[in-house]
């Protein structure tokens, strides 16, 4: 079953010819409309006409997240604001988010790719989709939503939180598909158990989980506890949102990346050299149909490998392996991207706090937890409990207001956080994924 059989099963030669044509259009578009890309291409000595085969792609410069941050908010847009019908954002490396803009055509393509992804996962238009991805600036909620409507399924826009209520609605509304982060699904399973609700009696048959890395072991656990088929989905707001790549139900062995819209490459993150298929390295993506904010060779920092072998599902688009980590220090906490440097700048912004902090990430009862340890030195110390408590609360509130994550601030004695010669170890991640 395909949403768009013609394009999903396009023979490789036709697919690659299409990619080249779209790549050249995109290059022309960014060269003409985006000063940053015009400069970068000129410096690399490449004009849009100079790219005549997909092999020329490797000659093009990379785009880094830092450059998106430097162009905040709309510096990389390739379309006039009048044509931008949607704006989303995600975590930047410090306080400012990275901003993406979509034209109407971009939104339609996103909906189509998400619809394709639903069908690849085994969803059909008669399904009732319980969408628990966050709605808002985050691309997850609205991305899944528009895809569900495009497919013609019935979407329930739950967003996150209020878990007891979600369970009740899942049961009463007869939800058949669940979309949320994998860890939240397990949290829901526990909540349901507490309510005395058996997932075997619910109508769910498939769940599409993403926004954070998860293992095969976790998949088995989810499938057992929620009594459904658990499918992995990949996406990132810089490229589009959810739906950039999806596991097919038939194989559940790698995620098909929609190559008629994205060209993937795997590189060595240190040298930038292209790696052969099968080798693990950093995923680089070039968008070839986006109008709002096309990106050339965007460094995702996600570590994976590419597989061009034909798949039993019949789709000819290459598969990327399940994500196995990052090549930077970004953390994903309850589906939210967090850079330690963001937390650092928030903590430093609170008067008197020294740069000796430690982030301890853990997973308790299936939910990610973040503990921020801060040393109490003489400057910070107060004789009154309420002042120290206010300090803890101020840290927790600032982090919640700026990053949207709930953390526990813990004040510790001075010199208990390890000092180091070189780069301080700021993060202890106790989660075993």
């Amino acid at each position, binding site marked *: 079953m395909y949403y768009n059989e013609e394009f999903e099963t396009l023979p490789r030669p036709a697919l690659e010819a299409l990619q080249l044509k779209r790549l050249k259009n995109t290059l022309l578009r960014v060269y003409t409309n985006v000063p940053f890309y015009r400069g970068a291409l000129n410096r690399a000595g490449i004009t849009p006409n100079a790219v005549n085969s997909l092999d020329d792609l490797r000659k093009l410069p990379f785009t880094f997240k830092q450059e998106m941050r430097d162009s905040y908010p709309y510096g990389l847009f390739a379309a006039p604001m009048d044509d931008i019908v949607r704006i989303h954002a995600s975590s930047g490396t410090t306080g400012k988010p990275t901003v993406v803009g979509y034209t109407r055509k971009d939104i339609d393509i996103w909906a189509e790719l998400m619809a394709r992804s639903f069908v690849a996962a085994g969803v059909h238009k008669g399904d009732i989709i319980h969408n628990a991805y966050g709605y808002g600036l985050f691309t997850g909620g609205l991305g899944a939503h528009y895809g569900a409507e495009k497919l013609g399924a019935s979407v329930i826009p739950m967003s996150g939180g209020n878990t007891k209520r979600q369970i009740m609605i899942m049961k009463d509304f007869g939800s058949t598909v669940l979309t949320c982060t994998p860890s939240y699904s397990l949290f829901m399973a526990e909540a349901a158990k507490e309510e005395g609700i058996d997932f075997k009696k619910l109508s769910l048959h498939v769940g599409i989980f993403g926004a954070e890395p998860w293992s095969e072991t976790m998949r088995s656990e989810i499938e057992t506890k929620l009594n459904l088929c658990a499918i992995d989905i990949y996406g990132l707001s810089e490229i589009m949102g959810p739906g950039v790549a999806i596991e097919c139900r038939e194989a559940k062995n790698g995620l098909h990346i929609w190559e008629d819209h994205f060209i993937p490459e795997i590189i060595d993150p240190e040298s930038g050299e292209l790696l052969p298929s099968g080798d693990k390295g950093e995923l680089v993506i070039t968008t070839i149909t986006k109008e709002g904010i096309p990106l050339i060779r965007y460094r995702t920092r996600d570590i994976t490998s590419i597989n061009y072998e034909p798949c039993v599902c019949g789709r000819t688009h290459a598969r990327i392996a399940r994500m196995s980590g990052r090549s930077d220090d970004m953390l994903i906490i309850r589906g939210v991207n967090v850079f330690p440097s963001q937390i650092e700048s928030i903590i430093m912004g609170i008067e008197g706090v020294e740069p000796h902090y430690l982030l301890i990430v853990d997973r308790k009862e299936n939910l990610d937890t973040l503990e921020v340890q801060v040393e*109490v*030195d*003489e400057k*910070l*110390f*107060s*004789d*009154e*409990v309420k002042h*120290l*408590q206010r300090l*803890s609360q101020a840290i927790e509130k600032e982090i919640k207001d700026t990053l949207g994550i709930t953390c526990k601030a*813990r*004040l*510790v*004695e*001075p*010199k*208990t956080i390890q000092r180091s010669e070189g780069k301080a170890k700021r993060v202890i991640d106790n989660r075993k994924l």
Partner: protein
Amino acid sequence: MKVEQISIFIENKSGRLAEITRILGEAGINIRALSLADTSDFGILRLIVNDRENAKIVLKEKGFTVSKTEVVAVEVPDKPGGLYQILRILDSEAINVEYMYAFVERCGENAVIIFRFDETDKAIKTLVDNGFNVLDGERLYSM
């Protein structure tokens, strides 16, 4: 008129309190009064000691965060209602008590209570004006 109290930040892990008393003991410092304020995450140990300077030095050497706070020691009649008399006067002047604890030694027939006020000078004046005896730090440390 004021008393210098030492406050120490303690993480809620085992042995910290024992460690502090060990350090002070080894330095020959005598604790005259103490109070421990605790939350689930940390505690603040408040001490009146005989040798404040040395106490600060030896504790800081061992990595503790120490600070000084001005508190007030007041003689309280050692009978029912004694404390109430004092608190009543403070209340009438809207002076806020942040915390208080008792001193080990008696002063003649009276008990001694250590107070931390939000307005120390105003509190001292109010107490003295109302006939209460406020003890000087120097007297207290070696009582």
